[in-house]
């Protein structure tokens, strides 16, 4: 097993609001090895983006972050504000959701690509700036002339590539991509995804890919984590997960995928996710679970346990197995 680059231990992101405590991420433990791509799937509101923002330490009050986020042995939560600012982009970068709007409408692409690097104290000799920008744009498959353009002159896919160029401009070790292809059509989606995957492989990065497109995940990532109501339900290698899903929620998710050629009825998951404001005890999926064990699931939270090497499940169904 490769050395873990990112180790998240018991991460809790709570928002203390008038209605109570919103437990958006509740005790999440996760490791990502160098050079692996981890997919994080879950329904809307399951805490995927909140987790990503917590890793970047971008949660604002009334939100709080507890736990440990070790990147390369350094606990991000113990860094000072200034050290964390330096760590963003140089160590850990993120492509935010909705990259369409993530570029400043009144600044040229060149300046936006450079801004982050300049703010991290990188110095450029005369004329070096253009070369660096051209190199980065070429890396994401854009022509050098894009540097002089404004965001409104670019298509959605091109803007997405620019955000990737910005995120990778300082060769971070970890890249978090939050639904990087959500607003693109499937053809561009594949192109952008292939570009990101190629860069992650070339630069030997670790990537956390957030999304809810199981098909996209199956093609892209090495390992898959299923998130539900702020908890990780199951983690494993993506092939095992699809071949042999263990958690009832994972099973239901995979069963709900439409299959080409099968014109039958789609199998959705009945019910809606529970509220994360003052959640009830027990497994969050208990109320929708087809295999619920009466008396246990509603009262006790199942811990995330390693059933087989690299395969973790949080479910009482496997209480008997080691």
């Amino acid at each position, binding site marked *: 097993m490769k050395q873990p680059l990112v180790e998240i231990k018991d991460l809790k992101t709570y928002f203390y609001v008038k209605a109570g405590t919103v437990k958006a991420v509740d005790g999440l433990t996760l490791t990502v090895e160098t050079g692996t791509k981890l997919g994080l799937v879950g329904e809307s509101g399951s805490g995927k983006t909140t987790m990503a923002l917590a890793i970047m330490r*971008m949660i604002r009050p009334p939100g709080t972050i507890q736990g440990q986020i070790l990147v390369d042995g350094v606990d991000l939560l113990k860094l000072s504000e200034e050290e964390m*600012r330096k760590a963003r982009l140089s160590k850990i970068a993120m492509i935010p959701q909705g990259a369409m709007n993530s570029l*400043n409408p*009144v600044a040229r692409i060149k300046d936006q690509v450079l801004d*982050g690097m300049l*703010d991290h104290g990188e110095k450029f000799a005369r004329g070096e700036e253009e070369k660096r920008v051209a190199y980065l744009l070429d890396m994401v498959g854009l022509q050098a002339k894009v540097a002089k353009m404004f965001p409104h002159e670019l298509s959605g896919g091109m803007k997405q590539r620019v955000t990737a160029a910005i*995120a990778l401009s300082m060769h971070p070790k970890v890249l978090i991509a939050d639904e990087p292809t959500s607003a693109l059509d499937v053809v561009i989606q594949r192109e952008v995804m292939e570009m990101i995957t190629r860069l992650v492989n070339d630069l030997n990065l670790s990537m956390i890919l957030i999304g809810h497109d199981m098909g996209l995940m199956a093609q892209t990532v090495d390992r898959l984590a299923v998130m539900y109501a702020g908890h990780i339900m199951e983690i494993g290698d993506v092939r095992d997960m699809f071949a042999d899903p263990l958690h009832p929620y994972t099973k239901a998710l995979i069963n709900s995928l439409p299959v080409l050629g099968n014109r039958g009825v789609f199998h959705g998951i009945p019910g809606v996710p529970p509220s994360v404001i003052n959640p009830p005890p027990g497994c969050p999926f208990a109320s929708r679970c087809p295999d619920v064990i009466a008396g246990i699931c509603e009262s006790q939270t199942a811990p995330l346990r390693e059933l087989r090497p690299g395969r973790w499940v949080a479910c009482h169904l496997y209480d008997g197995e080691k």
Partner: protein
Amino acid sequence: MSGFLSYVRRNPALGVGIGMLLFLLLFTTLGRLFVNPLHAYPLSVMPTQPPSAQYPFGTDVQGRDLLAVMVVGTGLTLQIGAIAGAIGLSVGIVLGFVAGYSGGVLDTVITSVIDVYMSIPGFLILVLIASIFSKVDLGVTEMGLIVSIVSWAGPARAIRAQVLSMRERPFVMMSKLSGMGTFEIIMKELVPNLAPYLVMSLSQTVYGGLQASLGLEALGIGARREPTMGMTLYYVQYYSALMLGMWWWVIEPIIVIVLVLTSLVMTSFGLDEIANPRRRKTV
């Protein structure tokens, strides 16, 4: 330049406003070449003369050449407005950005101070402060400084509101994720996006400052030695110019004031169209 001209065709208010402002600036600068600026002060020419070939604008009862007064006074009046506008807007920008961007307690404190301050009639504050200094010989610069005391609150509140909406935009999030510092985000992301709005604010602040200074001066509180438009109005009513039948003395400062204020309002309208795309006419 041709680009600007074709733009002005779509946005005539801006063209008219800037045109009038340029005209006034030329009037007050180039005008000095044709009149003796010293004739704008008392006892320099024959008093109480109606417009004639020698004094096209006439003279007042204290022996000022009113053409010289208009030439010099326009500049002085614009100067008061510019000082008040620059200071008011600078303070407004700093407070607005700090309050809007930082949020939290600091925002609450600044906003409350602004709200309380704005509920006190600004003119009252001005009259009080200017009266304190009435023994002192006020100059044009001092007037500008005094007027700027009330001209910061409006822009501060308006800019805070703009920053508040701007800081939630995704590209600000992106910059934060890219590890940019707060100051850099404000300067590189927020200010360029707010630039048209800030310029519009400037013309509005200058307008407000001018109005306040005119009001003070018409009451006789101001740079008494200087032939500003407001002081001219004060002397007009002090010597009851209308009763004396000196219509030229009354009309001329009013025309200049209307021109100055109109040019600023037009400029601000025109800039508003740039700052606020929803008001933009379709091309």
